[in-house]
């Protein structure tokens, strides 16, 4: 099974501050994803990446940037955090090859913006 880790696991930030959430995967998957989970909405895709150097917008990208400096690492960046970005954030990875779209998730980061 794919190993996906996230840091930090919990974060409290102030409104207007910069927040960086990190994700690392060790199974050499091409695709990586950032989702957020909110009550009543389920998980929603923020950004994704096909490989090192690539980032693409997901369904709710506003207020977020992403960075994929290597195959293993994928970061989510909140340049100016707002209370509406309080949520649980999940990173995932997957091979992304035709016929094999299974995704593997990290443990999540609980972010509170005060």
């Amino acid at each position, binding site marked *: 099974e794919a190993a996906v880790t996230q840091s930090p696991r919990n974060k409290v930030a102030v409104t207007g501050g910069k927040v960086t959430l990190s994700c690392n995967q060790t199974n050499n998957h091409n*695709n990586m994803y950032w989702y957020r989970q909110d009550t009543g909405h*389920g*998980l929603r*895709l923020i950004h994704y990446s096909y490989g090192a150097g690539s980032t693409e917008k997901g*369904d709710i990208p506003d207020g977020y940037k992403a960075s994929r400096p290597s195959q293993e690492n994928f970061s989510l960046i909140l340049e100016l955090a707002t209370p509406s970005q309080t949520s649980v954030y999940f990173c995932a990875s997957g091979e992304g090859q035709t016929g094999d*779209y*299974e995704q593997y*998730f*990290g443990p999540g980061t609980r972010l509170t913006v005060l």
Partner: protein
Amino acid sequence: EQQVQQSPASLVLQEAENAELQCSFSIFTNQVQWFYQRPGGRLVSLLYNPSGTKQSGRLTSTTVIKERRSSLHISSSQITDSGTYLCAMDRPFYGSSGNKLIFGIGTLLSVKP
């Protein structure tokens, strides 16, 4: 509009009873993935099911793609099965390779002794 609908929203069972969780999709999908999640916890992939029936231990997933539905059957439930079960459908990214998952809100299962 919620593209993935799950039912029931919550379910309470006595230990050893069976459970049937349902998932339906408003648009076409090729593949379905079922996850288990404890409150605030990691999503654990249970079954990845392109179509037909797939089994893993006490779990059986049946997906009928052309009817846009999938079900998860849990047999002989245990207290440790308590948690949220999420269904997600696979959707391709338009104009490029790769896919994304669109999730339902989940079914909260509680198994009592």
